[in-house]
């Protein structure tokens, strides 16, 4: 991991939270008793980063310290410890490329090449201020590897081509659809369901108890309602849906 230092020049010398953020600050501070307000340092730093175009400037960090009445060095320690607090400016769309083992095995290295080619070196901001990227550790979407996180959204099941297309659309201000970029819903199997497809599994017919011949016949039961899986269940996949989401089309 490289040394992390504040970009003091780009940070200027002032920072103010947006007025609509105040409510969120009050929410987080409200979680902690009056003498333990410094517990809110991470949420507040996070809000400051959001209000400062995705990175944490030195004045923003000081603002958080002043609000929580903490010594600057204590906040500085937190801000430099967690790598998701970015101490240098980033583009409007900041790509966090997962490079941990599962993604790496599924081709994250070729995605890195795409980023280098389309954007430049890690943490470099394109001249139009729209794009920047960095490699991060596991983002917890290994089942959809390889993946990137762009601002707050995951883009999964990427190929160099699909990532390249996403970056191109972001650069030109076009809409992009988060989620898996292949024929798949969330983490469901690619190409639709391939197991548990037999309808009899779900209509209750397999669990019916045979009538024992020697028992006295009970009164006729009311007809049982068929057990049907909900239409929105993730195990039943409508095959048309991913096609309509495919941004390549």
């Amino acid at each position: 991991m490289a040394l992390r230092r504040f970009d003091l020049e780009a940070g200027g010398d002032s920072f103010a939270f947006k007025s609509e953020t105040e409510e969120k600050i009050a929410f987080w501070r409200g979680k902690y008793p009056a003498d333990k307000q410094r517990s809110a340092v991470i949420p507040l730093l996070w809000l400051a980063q959001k209000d400062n175009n995705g990175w944490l400037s030195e004045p923003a960090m000081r603002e958080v310290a002043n609000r929580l009445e903490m010594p600057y060095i204590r906040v500085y320690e937190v801000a430099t410890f967690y790598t998701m607090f970015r101490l240098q400016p980033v583009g409007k769309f900041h790509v966090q490329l997962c490079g941990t083992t599962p993604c790496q095995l599924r081709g994250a290295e070729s995605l890195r090449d795409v980023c280098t080619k389309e954007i430049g070196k890690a943490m470099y901001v394109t001249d139009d201020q729209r794009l920047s990227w960095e490699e991060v550790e596991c983002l917890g979407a290994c089942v959809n590897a390889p993946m990137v996180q762009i601002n707050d959204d995951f883009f999964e099941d990427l190929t160099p081509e699909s990532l390249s297309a996403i970056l191109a659309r972001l650069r030109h201000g076009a809409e992009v659809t988060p989620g898996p970029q292949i024929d798949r819903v969330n983490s469901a199997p690619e190409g639709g369901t391939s197991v548990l497809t037999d309808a009899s599994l779900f209509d209750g017919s397999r669990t019916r108890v045979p009538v024992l011949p020697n028992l006295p016949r009970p009164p006729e039961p009311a007809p049982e309602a068929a057990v049907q899986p909900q239409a929105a269940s993730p195990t039943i996949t409508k095959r048309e849906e991913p096609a309509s989401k495919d941004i390549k089309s």
Partner: protein
Amino acid sequence: MSDKYKLNIDGVEVEVPKAYTLMQACEEVGAEIPRFCYHERLSVAGNCRMCLVEWEGAPKPLASCAQIVGDLRPNRDGSPPVIRTKGAYVEKARNGVMEFLLINHPLDCPICDQGGECDLQDQAVAYGRSDSRYEENKRAVEDKNMGPLVKTIMTRCIQCTRCVRFAAEVAGVEEIGMISRGESAEITTYLEKSLTSELSGNVIDLCPVGALTSKPYAFNARPWELRKTSSIDVMDAMGAAIRIDAKGDAVMRILPETNEEINEEWLSDKSRFVWDGLARQRLDRPYVRRNGKLLPVTWPEALDAVKAALSVGADQIGVVAGDLIEVEQAKAALDFFRGLGVKNTDCRPAGAQYGTSGVREHYLLNPTLMGVEESDALLLIGANPRVEAAVWNARIRKSWLWGNLKVAVIGEAAELTYPYTHLGTSADALAGAAVRDFFRGAKRPMIVVGEAAACRSDGAAILAAALSMAQETGAVSDGWAGFGMLHTAAGRVGALDAGFIPAEGGKATKDILGGALKTVVLLGADEADLSQLGSAQVIYVGSHGDAGAARADIVLPCAAYSEITATYVNTEGRVQMTTRAVQPKGEAREGWAIFRALSGVTGTVLAYDTADELRTLLRGKTGQNTAFSGRGYAPGTKGVPALLAAPPQAVGGLGNAPFGRAIADFYLTNPIARASRTMAECSALAASLDTAVAAE
């Protein structure tokens, strides 16, 4: 349940309190446990892993500094847990830790100032491997700015975080931290700003490696070539225990020594770094002013000149003793001038209203410096311990942090590193109800009056009011003497004890310096306002060319505190002695000897020929009890009967003018500090920070 717990350490059964750490228990049986991050006076961090020991049955070695004894369970047969601090298992564990620590540690011992007194070096010899198996690149860390006192070579840092904990816990100024993580972790101040704490030099002693070293001392000497002398510090009235390290004729550095009752093991930056002032601006021979210029003369010529200057009549002579005067000089000077019939003698700052009641306890810090740890309510009247007794301020902070001390202040609302109730800025707040409310329910109240309060026109009234309040609130009771004065000058209490106050009908400092006298003798008195002296003949006896010498007509050079074996009495009334570490400069003489020589010239010979005879006189005969009889002990509660007597009647009431500051600039309080380049740098830095704060 008993709060004791049995352990078997290295085959020895020992019973220790349950709250002990395993390290303490091991030390109880005399085992030596290596450590880097652990320090007795700081919180436990447990991150260096050097103190590993074996607990039989445990899957891994234990960090003994962080293991509480009470948490170890006994063996299955009920026998006490078996701990081993020696043996192959422990050796291998420590060996491995040491190898990891040395992976990123540079092999620059030959150019490192810590070499020879380095914990890492010593422990690597004792516990480490003879070679390294590490072939990759070592990590390098950028050096950080920490100001004019602390030099950093951060590649040497092993991240023990002692300095971080010291700054946060003891100094109370959270300025140092560890940023980033893992291999990138670095110790730094916030954006490399300079340290502002007046105790910052202690991180140099705390650092177990050569990452934080002394900037002024850098590359000056090696520890094994220094002559080490235990002595007493005179930069403030605490009398901290110090060690003066000298090479040849020069003082190379000053380090603290442990005195639990005074400075624990800390030292203020002024006391620690003032040593370069001992080599600058020194008066090394007598001078006499002729035709407006000070010309070097011989001692006999100078003494003759003094004799002539003193022939103006006893009532035309005034003597003012300065802040650094030692008891021997004060006594000899007093005896000499009283022998001439001089009544105008004073050792106190201008306007001082204390020390004349005849009761020693009225000007001592009776509760003692250590007593603040027993106290539960401390009222500071016109005192700012952070600048007047910086190390004591850390002790007050400690009592507030770990004990149940609460503090209130009457005077300037300064930043003291602990919270306090601000009861007012002037003396009349003493009469208010808030003060009594503050002391309500307190079992060990403590009232401390500073010089900013005692050196003004209503000073006597303040002292009387504070003493009567102490009696009223139970601050003075059986076994607790909770009233005292915090002095700012090392020589003051000793000189007061010697009787260096105006005789009946004599003038005090302000009038002596007021221009009405024909001859004024200054005994290192550079702090006083010398602008009103008018046409008076000035005789200056001192060690440094400062304000006094600049105004003087005759200059008699005397030795500084590092060059004499002399008695000092600290603010508690504790009698201590300095030790000569180096020879006096040039023709400078010990203070008392100058007056002994002078007495021969004027024909009023003093009754002692050696310093020992003088000291015997001071201590009194066997069985006789004088202020100087005991050595090393603070009178403390012995003063209770004297404090229970009715306070002296003071003329006038409590004023409403706000208290000023007893010390304007922490770094420049005496001629030695003003001669020091390091102190000048610190002072300039502090001033620039003050302006920055004021501008905001």
